[in-house]
């Protein structure tokens, strides 16, 4: 019988995918959110982690931006 799992489908580029996998691995096992890694640019994760992923990516982006010290 066909099995259906509900979640969120993520499409991104390869560096971002690695970033998400890394974030997943650093989480304690009760909070790991990746259900399946489909290929190098797609993955399937649990629902409700959208916002967390977005804010983590935004933080990563801010760390990489240069702010001139005032």
């Amino acid at each position: 019988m066909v099995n259906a799992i509900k979640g969120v489908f993520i499409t991104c580029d390869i560096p971002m995918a690695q970033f998400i996998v890394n974030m997943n691995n650093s989480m304690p096992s009760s909070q790991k959110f990746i259900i399946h890694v489909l290929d190098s640019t797609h993955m399937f994760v649990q629902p409700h982690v959208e916002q967390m992923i977005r804010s983590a990516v935004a933080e990563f982006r801010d760390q990489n931006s240069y702010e001139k010290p005032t």
Partner: protein
Amino acid sequence: MPQVKIIAKNFMDMVASLTAIKLDKLYNNVFICEAILRSLPPLAKKYVLQLLFTDAPVTAKMMKEWVLPDGESKHGVAIDRLIQLRIFNESVDRKKETCYSLNPTFQKNLQKHIISGGVLPREPMNSNNAIKLPSLQELETYALHQWECFLLQLINSGQGEKLTGISSSMMKVFQRGLLSQRDRDGPRLTESGFQFLLMDTNAQLWYIIREYISNAEERDVDPADLISFLLELSFHVTGEAYNLNTLTDVQRTTLKDLADLGLVKLQQGRKDSWFIPTKLATNLSVSLADSSVRKEGYVMMETNFRMYAYSTSKLQCEILRLFARIEYQLPNLIACAITKESLYNAFDNGITSDQIITFLQQNSHPRCADRVPSIPENVTDQIRLWESDLKRIEMTQAHFYDEFPSKDVFEAACDFARQWGGLLWEDSKRMRLVVKSEVHNQMREYLHTQSK
């Protein structure tokens, strides 16, 4: 980010949505007939002129033969437009074929108009009345100034000073789509508000006029009358004075509002008062045909991401502040820089990189505009890169299916999902499928029926 766009919807769409009776009343005015004729697509214009002096209906089949095979789509568009505006009446003749004939009121009035030439219901006043008519240049500066004050007030309603005479209830109507009321910080521009500011003047003008007309019903003014007056106004001569006593009361109140927007200039002499239409008014019917008057550009973009705007207008400063960091302001120059932070700010507010780039291209200084491309490529590329940097990850609510009993069931499920437009990803080797959540319920029922 949701892509909300305010489309400067064609005035004609609004006219087309009026009821049949109102439309017939409108067609009694020859100027409206001419304005509508001007706004039709070229093929439709040809059809109208061809059928103008024919009394008998023409079969649809015969009209199709007039067009070459690759013009079929244009033919369809033209006929649809004409039926929508009720210029063409569809009927069935004795041979049970559809045929078209021109709306009789429209036909009669257009014929009269072509034969006798357009005579406005009012004459320009004689110049020996000792009126001091403003020169065309002065008129244009006046119109521009009024329009800018209006726009500034529209977006900065938090400021205490009232720059124009438009009542605050009218302003609220215009601000309806553009500003959102937030109790703490005061009203803020919405996404559509930002896009509105970056449009060119004609598009903005049409948006405001459309809002004005849709609001007319609430003020007990018949929108058809308003439309006919506006179109009539667009046929007046710029710079000529027309006496106010030739207008009805309703038209007079409308004129006062239009003066605040900068479409006409009101003047008073000792005995009479008159109005002078500006270029903004006469452009009303021209811009129906989607041609825009090219304003003088004022922005110079350099490869080091610095921008110099040769302008003194407060409005233009505000618009530039939307996406660039203003460094300093000199008496005739605004120096700004496009930075990552200023662009991120703009993207947060809902402006897209395409809008910013089109705005820069349309408003580039004549010296810059001669160069190809008018904006340096590294700047446009970098703006687009910064925007795509914000969109690296795409997330969709979905369902994941695996453990299919057989390859056939898997293939059938794939096709089903594809038909419903919900297929996101499939793996035929391991028979796994990802489908959008919206399609999940249909998918589940389909799989139930398959397994029986």
